[in-house]
């Protein structure tokens, strides 16, 4: 039986842990605070101010007008459902693996062990997202879309919405998968109800937040009170729920996160991402293997293995069409003048679309990651490098193009006239090719950061460029995707430009990617050699 109170034991354990060598000191914390203030003051706020000055008043006013309420409601409903499932992958209840394993296996109540880190995380999420929203609202206020009272209200709304999101993530972490499914369906049902029946969206906290954001409601103070009270009530329920939090879930999540951080810090982004991929399920036993024409057998293999990782496939099926839809919305503004105020909207849309599509292709390109491993290891398969690549091409290419069209065509049908359809479809296909090139380029890079990148690279002016090189290496696929999409958005829209940009991009990235494989393109299959 413990002779000291749980609190004292916890305090003693944490004291030892915090007193370890390398633990952050109060000086480190002050320095972090100084860095945050410095970056906010010298970069973030001035940039937000500049954007606010540049922003078109009508557009800015539209973003916080009552007309935006249904869109904000829809977006928040989607985010609520996503928050639940994000919590299943990594929720706000977090301890380092060592602490989680040590403290959760004691007889101290889980509620006592976990309540502080959980509430700190939830409030931290609120503070972080609230801060980001505040910066955005600051830009809108500079554009004249709101006064300073509204600025405070909108910032508070953002923070409260984030706290709600953090609490939903907590529920996702705590509940069983069955309850998670029920809750997701409930959120979707209430979202659908709010969309279909006017005024019904005000029955949920998501609706209150949307109404607070959009303004124009006489009961703003009541809505604010309701939103805050709901958050507080759920926050008060958290300690009770923590008592039955499965220790294995906390330990697994914390080990995964710490491994991902370690891999990221050493440049092994693929390994870091691997930690978050769902394990494959047993289905279609034996069907993955087929002989014969490489394109068909490779397609079969990739299709079967994709069906075994339905979450990855589902993420591709959601992210790629969403990205394609965003990029299709950009079509009307393609070729706009560089000082056209529409670019304030189209450029972020294009960047977001490119990122969504790039991340979405990750769910279809497991075969390319395996291909790279195949190239890096001793010869195992009886085909040459060209055949190996051909086997792995059809699934990502066909999948990406189909999903791109699935996102682009409905968007075109809703938002454009018939004359623009061909234009938009061609544009979507070009984008998908560019994104695929970027993904292939990234998939073929070495597993570890090249050692020479870690050595100092001094450029004129005595500045060490090595950190930039590492960042470029880490984000090369994203950089290629975003740059090529922006180039296509900003360059004049004519066939010559398209051919030049796309052709150049395809040739450079594919050749460079192939150089990364370390394989000779002319190499033939080993099995072609006779025994004599």
């Amino acid at each position, binding site marked *: 039986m413990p002779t000291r109170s749980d609190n004292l034991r916890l305090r003693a354990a944490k004291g030892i842990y915090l007193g370890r060598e390398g633990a952050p000191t109060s000086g480190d914390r002050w320095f972090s605070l100084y860095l945050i203030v410095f970056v906010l003051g010298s970069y973030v706020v001035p940039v937000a101010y500049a954007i606010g000055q540049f922003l078109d008043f009508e557009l800015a006013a539209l973003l916080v007008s009552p007309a935006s309420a249904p869109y904000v409601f829809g977006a928040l409903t989607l985010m609520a459902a996503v928050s639940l499932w994000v919590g299943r992958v990594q929720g706000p209840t977090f301890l380092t693996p060592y602490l989680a394993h040590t403290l959760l296996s004691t007889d101290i109540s889980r509620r006592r062990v976990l309540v502080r880190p959980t509430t700190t995380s939830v409030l931290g999420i609120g503070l972080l997202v609230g801060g980001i929203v505040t910066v955005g609202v600051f830009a809108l206020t500079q554009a004249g879309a709101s006064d300073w009272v509204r600025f405070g209200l909108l910032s508070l709304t953002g923070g409260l919405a984030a706290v709600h999101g953090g609490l939903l993530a907590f529920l996702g972490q705590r509940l069983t998968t069955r309850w998670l499914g029920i809750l997701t369906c409930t959120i979707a049902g209430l979202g659908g109800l709010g969309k279909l029946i006017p005024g019904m969206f005000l029955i949920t906290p998501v609706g209150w937040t949307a109404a607070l954001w959009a303004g124009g409601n006489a009961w703003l103070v009541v809505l604010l009170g309701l939103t805050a009270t709901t958050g507080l009530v759920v926050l008060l329920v958290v300690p009770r729920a923590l008592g039955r939090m499965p220790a294995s879930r906390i330990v697994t999540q914390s080990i995964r996160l710490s491994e991902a951080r370690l891999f990221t810090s050493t440049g092994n982004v693929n390994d870091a991402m691997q930690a978050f991929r769902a394990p*494959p399920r*047993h289905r279609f036993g034996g069907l993955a293997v087929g002989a014969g024409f490489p394109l068909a057998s490779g397609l079969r293999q990739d299709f079967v293995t994709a069906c075994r990782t339905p979450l990855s496939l589902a993420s591709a099926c959601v992210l790629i069409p969403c990205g394609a839809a965003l990029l299709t919305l950009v079509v009307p503004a393609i070729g706009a003048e560089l000082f056209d105020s529409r670019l304030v909207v189209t450029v972020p849309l294009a960047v977001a679309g490119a990122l969504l599509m790039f991340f979405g292709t990750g769910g279809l390109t497991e075969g390319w990651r395996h291909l790279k491993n195949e190239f890096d290891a*001793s010869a195992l398969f*009886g085909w040459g490098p060209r055949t190996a690549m051909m086997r792995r091409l059809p699934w990502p290419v066909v999948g990406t193009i189909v999903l791109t069209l699935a996102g682009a065509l409905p968007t075109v049908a809703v938002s454009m006239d018939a004359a623009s359809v061909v234009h938009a479809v061609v544009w979507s296909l070009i984008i998908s090719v560019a994104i695929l090139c970027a993904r292939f380029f990234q998939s073929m890079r070495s597993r570890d950061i090249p050692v020479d990148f870690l050595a100092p690279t001094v450029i004129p002016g005595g500045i060490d460029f090595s950190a930039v090189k590492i960042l470029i290496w880490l984000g090369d696929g994203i950089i290629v995707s975003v740059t090529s999409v922006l180039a296509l958005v900003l360059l004049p829209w004519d066939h010559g430009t398209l051919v030049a940009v796309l052709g150049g991009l395809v040739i450079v990235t594919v050749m460079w990617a192939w150089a990364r494989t370390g394989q000779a393109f002319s190499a033939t*299959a080993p099995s072609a050699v006779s025994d004599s």
Partner: protein
Amino acid sequence: MTVTVECRGLGVWTDDSILLPETTFSLFTPGLVPLTGANGAGKTTLLKTLAGRQLPSAGECRVNGQVPNEFDPSFRACVASLIDTPPMARDMTLIEQLSLVRVSWGDGVSAAFSAAEHTLEQLTIAQLGERFPYELSAGQLQLFGVALTLSRPFKLLLLDEPERHLDEERVEALVQILESLADDGGLIIAATHRAEILDRASVIEDVPVRVDLVGPSSADEI
């Protein structure tokens, strides 16, 4: 046709360290040849050089009279190796992965599945055929790595501590497979520390054939 391996003054080093001291040996007959030496003696480096994945700093080595070159299809057809963990598809079962290797070398699909089952059986892990790699223990993963490598044809097999993580029963099963492959005309060079493998080295004129990396400047063939 049997395979031959010849190394003359083969050495590998970097600016500040010797990875493989100058080594000379010749192997002309099939068999199981243990490669021994203390940790850091250069066993893995020697295997990598023989596999064509490491360029020598001095001397030369030849496999079947040719300089190892992993880009040469005939060399790749001749030499199989298990030096690092082989590539494993996380979303294919063991039996599928083994079959795919066989299919890639020209087997029919059903024959490949049968042979894959047989390989797993030989390695005493037949019951794991429907599992994914992440569902295996360290020892089972090692056996699966061995199974993948043995699923492809070869004349020279290079193994780096194939007994890693294995219990005595599995080591025995592995040694029996290696002996049978050697009897069928394969040359198997296995870096090892385990007596079970050292004791089963091929014997020529009452002398066990073994490559010992013994010091910073030389290696002996016994």
